[in-house]
C-alpha cells in the first residue's frame, strides 16, 4: 500500500521581533481544516519522539550541473520504520544559492509483508549565485530529539546557456535588475517558483546607494506575491551594523498594492521600513533578512482543496545591500559643528523680555528639521557673565514625515539675571551639514534683549558670589615693555660688597672690638698692680703704726697706743686682701685669713691680740707699761707670723 500525504512543513510560526511576528495579510481566512490537517501530520510525522527508529537522511539534487540563472531542486529525504517529530532542515548554511522556492514536504507510508516504512521529504528550489563549482553544505535535521546531517552536494554551475536545462517552474516574472520599487536601486533578484509552487518573493531596497555619514538612507522590505499569504515572520532579529536605525512604523494590517512586474501582476506589501543613518564612512552593508512565510498551497486533490486549507511555510531572504558612505568634508567645517546632518531650523525664545534681578527667565533653544539629532549633545547657549545659568533640561523627539525622519531637540534653560540694566542673550549659532547641497551651513538666532530691573528689595544684584566667573584666557604671549629711568641711570656693575666702603665698614667693628679688648685688659692689669702694691706696702704700714704705738706707750696715752696697735693689725689685713679696713669685722677677718690658708694658731693669736687691744681701749684701768709692751710684742709677733703664712 502506498499512501502519500502532503502537509505543512511548519506547524508553528516563529515570533519575530520588531512587530513583524505573525502578520496576517487582510482577507486571509482562518481555516479550521488546516488545523486538523496539521494535527494529522503531526501525528503521522512526529507524534511521539520515542517512535523514531532506524532513521537515515539523504540529500540529493535533481541535476549536478546547471546553467547560470537556472534552478536546481534539492530534495532532503528522511527514511525510517517510524519517525518521531521532524523539524525542517536548517538551510541557513546555504550561501552559494538563493532559495527561490520551498520547502515542499511530502510523506510516504509503505506496508509490505507486515513491515511499515516511512519516508518524509522536503524539496527546495535553489538558484546558484555564481558560476563554477558550488556546494550545498551538510544540512541538519532534528528528528526525535536527535540531529542528523546530510552529505554535502557539489553542483557545477556553467555559464549561461552552456549547461543543463533550466529548472522546472514558470519563467521569471518581472524580468531582471532595475525592476525594483522606486527604481532608485537595484531590487532583489526575481525568485522563481517550481512548477505548482507559488510566486512569492521578498525584496530589500534602499532609496540611495550613496550617502554621507549621518545622512538618512531609507530601507524598505517588500513582499510580492501571487498567492494568498496566511502568515509571515522574520526569522532573526534585524541588525544593521554600521548604522543608527530608527523604525518607521508600517500599519499593523499590511496594506496591499497592485504591482505590475512585466506581464505579471503581484500583490505587494511593505513589510518593514527603517531609517538608517551611517555612523562611519566606507562601504556599509545592509544585511540580508530572512522571512518565513506561510502560504496557501495549491493542491491537486479537489477533496483536500474543498474541505481543508492546504498550507505551506516557505523561506525567503532579501539580498544584502551595499551602501557607499562618504565622510563629511574636513575642510570648511565650522566651529561648533556637533555632527548634525540634515536640514534644520533654529529658534530661540525667551518667556519674557523684562525681568528683575534674581527673577528667573526661561529660554528655549529649539533645533528641528529633517535628520538625526541624537548625536548632538553640545549646549548651544554660551556662558553668560550677567546671568546665572543652570544646566538645561533637554528634550528630544522624532517623527516620520514621508519616510523621512524629522528630529526636534529643545534645550530649556533657566537664566537668573545678576545685574540690573539692559542685558542681552547673545545670538545662538548652530552648524550642520546639508547632504543635499553637500556643504556645511550655520544658522544663528537674533540676540534677545532683556531689560532687567532692580530686585524687589532694591538690591542691584547678589553680593558678588553669584556672579559666574570665567578664567581669563591667555591669547598669546609677548615680552614685557621697556623700562623708563625717571630717577636716572646708575652704574650697578660693582656691588656694594666690592666697594672700599664695605671693606671699611667691615673693618671698623673689628678695630673697635680690638680697642675695647685692649682697654679692658689694660684696666684690669692696672687694677691688679694697685692691689699688689697695697699688699706689698701692708707690712711697712703696719710697722709704721706699731712705731707710732711704741711712741705712745705711756699710761696717759694708753688708749691711743691700743688704737694704733688695733689699726695696725686691721689695716694690715685690709691691705693684704685689698679691701677697706672700715668694714672688717672679726668674722670677716677670719674668713679672709682662712681663704689665704693662715694657720689656726696664727688666727687665734691675731684675734687674741686684737681683742686685747679692744679690751684695753674700752677698759684702760688695768693697762700698765708692761702690759702695753707685751701687747706690742704680741702684735709684732702676730704680723711676722701672718706675713710668713700669707706670703707663702
Amino acid at each position, binding site marked *: 500500500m502506498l499512501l502519500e500525504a502532503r502537509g505543512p512543513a511548519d506547524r508553528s510560526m516563529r515570533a519575530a521581533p520588531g512587530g513583524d511576528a505573525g502578520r496576517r495579510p487582510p482577507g486571509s481566512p482562518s481555516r479550521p481544516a488546516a488545523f486538523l490537517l496539521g494535527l494529522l501530520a503531526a501525528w503521522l510525522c512526529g507524534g511521539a519522539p520515542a517512535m523514531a527508529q532506524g532513521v537515515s537522511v539523504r540529500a540529493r539534487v535533481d541535476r549536478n550541473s546547471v546553467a547560470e540563472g537556472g534552478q536546481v531542486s534539492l530534495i532532503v529525504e528522511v527514511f525510517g520504520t517510524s519517525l518521531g517529530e521532524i523539524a525542517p532542515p536548517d538551510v541557513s548554511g546555504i550561501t552559494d544559492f538563493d532559495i527561490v522556492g520551498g520547502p515542499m514536504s511530502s510523506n510516504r507510508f509503505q506496508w509490505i509483508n507486515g513491515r511499515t516504512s516511512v519516508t518524509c521529504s522536503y524539496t527546495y528550489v535553489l538558484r546558484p549565485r555564481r558560476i563554477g563549482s558550488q556546494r550545498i553544505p551538510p544540512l541538519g535535521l532534528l528528528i526525535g530529539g536527535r540531529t542528523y546531517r546530510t552529505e554535502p552536494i557539489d553542483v557545477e554551475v556553467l555559464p549561461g546557456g552552456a549547461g543543463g536545462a533550466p529548472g522546472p517552474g514558470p519563467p521569471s516574472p518581472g524580468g531582471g535588475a532595475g525592476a525594483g520599487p522606486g527604481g532608485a536601486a537595484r531590487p532583489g533578484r526575481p525568485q522563481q517558483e517550481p512548477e505548482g509552487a507559488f510566486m512569492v518573493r521578498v525584496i530589500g531596497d534602499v532609496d540611495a546607494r550613496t550617502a554621507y555619514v549621518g545622512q538618512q538612507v531609507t530601507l524598505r522590505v517588500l513582499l510580492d506575491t501571487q498567492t494568498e499569504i496566511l502568515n509571515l515572520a522574520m526569522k532573526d532579529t534585524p541588525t544593521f551594523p554600521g548604522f543608527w536605525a530608527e523604525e518607521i512604523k508600517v500599519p499593523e494590517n499590511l496594506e496591499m498594492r497592485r504591482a505590475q512586474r512585466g506581464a505579471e501582476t503581484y500583490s505587494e506589501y511593505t513589510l518593514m521600513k527603517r531609517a538608517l543613518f551611517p555612523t562611519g564612512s566606507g562601504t556599509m552593508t545592509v544585511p540580508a533578512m530572512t522571512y518565513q512565510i506561510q502560504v496557501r498551497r495549491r493542491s491537486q486533490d479537489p477533496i483536500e482543496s474543498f474541505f481543508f486549507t492546504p498550507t505551506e511555510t516557505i523561506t525567503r531572504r532579501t539580498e544584502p545591500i551595499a551602501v557607499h558612505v562618504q565622510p563629511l568634508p574636513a575642510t570648511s567645517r565650522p566651529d561648533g559643528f556637533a555632527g548634525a546632518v540634515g536640514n534644520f531650523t533654529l529658534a530661540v525664545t525667551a518667556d519674557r523680555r523684562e525681568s528683575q534681578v534674581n527673577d528667573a527667565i526661561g529660554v528655549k533653544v529649539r533645533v528641528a528639521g529633517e535628520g538625526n539629532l541624537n548625536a548632538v549633545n553640545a549646549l548651544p547657549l554660551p556662558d553668560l557673565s550677567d546671568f546665572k545659568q543652570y544646566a538645561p533640561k533637554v528634550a528630544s523627539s522624532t517623527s516620520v514625515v514621508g519616510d523621512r525622519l524629522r528630529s526636534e531637540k529643545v534645550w530649556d534653560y533657566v537664566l537668573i539675571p545678576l545685574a540690573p540694566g539692559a542685558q542681552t542673550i547673545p545670538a545662538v549659532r548652530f552648524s550642520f551639514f546639508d547632504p543635499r547641497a553637500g556643504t556645511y551651513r550655520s544658522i544663528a538666532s537674533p540676540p534677545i534683549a532683556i531689560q532687567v530691573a532692580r530686585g524687589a528689595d532694591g538690591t542691584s544684584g547678589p553680593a558678588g558670589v553669584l556672579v559666574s566667573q570665567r578664567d581669563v584666557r591667555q591669547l598669546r604671549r609677548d*615680552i614685557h*615693555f*621697556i*623700562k*623708563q629711568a625717571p630717577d636716572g641711570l646708575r652704574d650697578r656693575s660693582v*656691588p656694594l*660688597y666690592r666697594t672700599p666702603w664695605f671693606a671699611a*665698614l667691615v673693618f671698623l667693628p673689628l678695630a673697635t672690638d680690638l680697642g675695647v679688648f685692649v682697654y679692658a685688659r689694660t684696666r684690669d692689669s692696672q687694677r691688679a698692680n694697685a692691689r699688689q702694691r697695697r699688699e706689698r706696702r701692708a707690712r711697712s704700714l703696719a710697722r709704721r703704726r706699731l712705731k707710732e704705738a711704741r711712741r705712745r706707750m705711756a699710761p696717759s696715752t694708753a688708749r691711743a697706743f691700743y688704737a694704733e696697735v688695733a689699726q695696725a693689725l686691721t689695716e694690715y689685713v685690709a691691705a693684704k686682701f685689698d679691701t677697706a679696713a672700715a668694714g672688717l669685722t672679726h668674722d670677716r677677718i677670719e674668713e679672709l685669713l682662712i681663704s689665704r690658708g693662715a694657720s689656726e694658731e696664727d688666727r687665734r693669736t691675731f684675734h687674741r691680740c686684737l681683742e686685747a687691744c679692744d679690751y684695753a681701749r674700752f677698759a684702760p684701768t688695768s693697762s700698765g707699761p708692761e702690759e702695753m709692751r707685751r701687747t706690742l710684742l704680741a702684735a709684732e709677733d702676730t704680723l711676722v707670723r701672718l706675713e710668713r703664712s700669707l706670703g707663702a
Partner: protein
Amino acid sequence: MSPSRLALVALLTLWAAAPLSPALASTPRELFQLGNSAYEQGKFEEAAGAYEKILAYGFADPRVLYNLANACFKQGKLGAAILYYERALRLDPSDQDVRDNLELARGLIHDRIPEAEIPYPVKAIREVLDALPVDVLCVVFLCVYYVAAGLVGALPVVSGNVRRRVLGYGAAAAGLCVLLSGGALFYKHQDRTAAHAIVMRDRVDVLSGPSADNTVLFTVHEGARLEVRNRRGGWFQVSLPNAMSGWVPSEAVERV
C-alpha cells in the same frame, strides 16, 4: 651775516639738535631716552644701538640691559636677548619683568635642557636669595655684623655674671646670623661670578676637544645657556646641567 656769526649759529643749532640724534647724544640719560623713543617707534635696531652706547660708557644699569634685551628680542636675536636678560638679572635679581621675559625667551630656544634636580628646601632658599638684590643683602649683613660686634665688644667692659651671660648668648646668636648672611652673600657672589655663556649662533657643535678636528658630541642652538668650566686658547670647555660637556669655539658663545 659775518662768517663768525654764521659759525656761532651753526654751533648753537648743533647743540640744540644734539639730543635728537643718537650719534650726537652724549650722556647716558639722553641715549636712554633716544633708545626708548626708537623702541616705541618700532626702530628696534636703532634702539639697540643707543643702549649699547650706554653700556660702552660703562653704565651697567639693569634697565639699560633689560631694554637692550627687549630690542634684541624684537629683532629676532634670541641669543643676544637671553644674554642681556641674564646680565640684567645678575644686576637686579628682584626684577620680575626680567624674569618673565627671560622665561619667555628661553621657551623659544630649540634645546630642551633639563635642570638638575634640587631638593625642595634648597630650592626654596635659592629662590628667596635669587629674588634679593645683592646690595640689600650687603646691608643686612652689615647690620647683623654690627650687632654681633657690639655685643662682643661689650663683653669685656660689662661686669656681673648675669649680664655677661646674656651678652654672651646674644653675641652667639648674632654671630650665627652673621654666618648665615655672610653665606648668603657668598652665594650671591658665586652666582654673580659664575662662568656662564650663551650660545649666540643658530647652532653650535660641541666637540670632544679644543680643536675643529675633534668628534662632535652634541649640538646646541642659539640661546642655550652653558656653564663654562675651562678655557684653552680660543675654546671654552662647557657643560650642561645634565653633565654633558665638550668644547666650543669662544666666538660662538658670549660670557654672561
